[in-house]
C-alpha cells in the first residue's frame, strides 16, 4: 500500500508559513517560524489534498511529497 510523506527542506524554507496555514495537521513551525513536517511526515489518506495544496503554495519550493 502506498504511503505519502511530506518533507520540508530546512535549507530552502524561509518561513513563509504557507504550509502551516493550509495544512496545520501535517506541518508545524519552530520558534523562528520556519516550517517542518509533523512527526514522520506521514500523510493520512484524507489529508492528501491538503498536502498537495501546501506543496503548491510554498514560494520557496521547499516541500516534497514522497511516495513509498
Amino acid at each position, binding site marked *: 500500500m502506498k504511503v505519502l510523506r511530506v518533507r520540508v527542506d530546512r535549507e530552502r524554507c*524561509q*518561513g*513563509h*508559513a504557507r504550509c*502551516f*496555514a*493550509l495544512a496545520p495537521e501535517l506541518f508545524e*513551525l519552530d*520558534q*523562528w*517560524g*520556519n516550517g517542518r513536517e509533523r512527526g514522520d511526515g506521514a500523510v493520512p489518506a484524507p489529508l492528501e489534498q491538503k498536502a498537495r*495544496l501546501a506543496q*503548491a*503554495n*510554498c*514560494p*520557496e*519550493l521547499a516541500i516534497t511529497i514522497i511516495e513509498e
Partner: protein
Amino acid sequence: MGESMSPRPPASDWSTDFDHLDPRWSENPYPIWDELRQSCPIAHTDRFMGAYFPSRYEDVRAIAYDTEHFSSRRIIVRETRPPLIPAPPITSDPPEHRPAKQVLLPAFTPEAIERHEPHARAICRELIGRIAGKSRCDAAVEYAQEIPVRVIAHMLGVPEQEGELFRKWIKEILEIGITDHEVLMRAQREMIAYFAEKIAARRAVPRDDLIGYLINASVDGRAFSDEHINGTLRLLLIAGIDTTWSAIGSCLWHLAQHADDRRRLAAEPDLMGPAVEEFLRAYAPVTMAREVVKETEIAGCAFKPGHMVLLSFPAANRDPAMFPDADQVIIDRKENRHAAFGLGIHRCIGSNLARMEIRVALSEWLARLPEFRLDPDARVTWSVGTVRGPRALPLLLG
C-alpha cells in the same frame, strides 16, 4: 518639497529608459510590465545612475537568491547613491544577515502575531465606527493608513498617536527622498535621534515591548549595538506601516469595483485565506532593490557592478509563465506561489503580521460596510516609487 523637484523628462522607451517615477508607471504599471516581459524581459535605464528592471518571475527569483552578485546594502533605487545607512536585517548580506534576522523572528511567528489580533480588530472597529453612517469616505486615509501604524507602534513601544510623524518620515524616505537627497538625510537623522532617545529611555526604565526585547536580546551569545538596534527599529517602523496600508487600500480598491468578489467574500468567510493571498499576488505593494556588486549574467543580460536592480515582486507576480490568467484576480486561486513578501533569505519578516492585519481589516469592513464603490466624482491617487498603494481612495458607501 514636491514643488522643488524639477520636472522629469517622460520615459521615452520602457526597455532602455524606464522610470518607475513616471506618472504612467505609478498610475497603472501592469501593461508596461506585460510589454517588457514580451519585448525585453530585463530592462535597463541610465536614470538613477544606472538600474535594471527584470519583469519575469524566474529572473526576479534568480536575483533574490543570488546574494553574491546582488547586495542588499542599498534597497531603494534613488537618483544618487547616498551614504549607506544600515537598517538590519533588510540591508544586510550574509553572513551578518542571519543573526540580525534571527533575533527578530520569534516576535513575528503566526503564534506571536495572534496576540496582537484583538488590538488590530479593536482599531478597525473604532475606525469603522467613525465611518459607518456616512455616505462617502476616503478609505485610504480614514481606514487603511491608520491600522498598521497603530499596531506596529504598539508592538515597538512608541506612541500610537504619532502616526502623522511616522507617515511624514515614510513619505520623505520612500518617496520624496528618491530624488531629494537633503530631505532623505534629514528624515534619517530625525528618525535616528527619535529612536536613540527611545532606546535610552528603555535602558533606564525597562518595558515589555520590542525596544526592550532588542536591548536584552542576543544571538550566539552576542548582544546588539545601539546603532544596530536603532537601524532595526527604523526598519520595523517604516516597513510595518505603508506596506500593509497599501495592501489594505488595494484590496478595498479592488472590492469597490468588483461586486461579485465583494459579495462572495462577505458570504463565504472561508474564502478570506485564498482571497488575501490573491490580492497580495495581484496587488503586491513592495518593490525592493539590490546593488550589483559583482559582474554577472542572467538570461543573457550582463549586470554591471555599481548599477541598481529594481527587484519588482509585483511584476514577478503578474508573470503569466508562472501564474495562469496572471492579470485576472481569482479570489479562490488554488496554486499561488506569489512573491509578495520576497523570496530567499530576505523574506519579509512581517508577513504574518501583514496577513493578519489585511484579513482583520477586510473582514471587519465587510461585516459593517458590505456595499461600497468608487466615488465617480473623486480621484484615486497612488503612491510613487518603492511601495504601491492608494493614497486617496474615495468611496461611496451603501
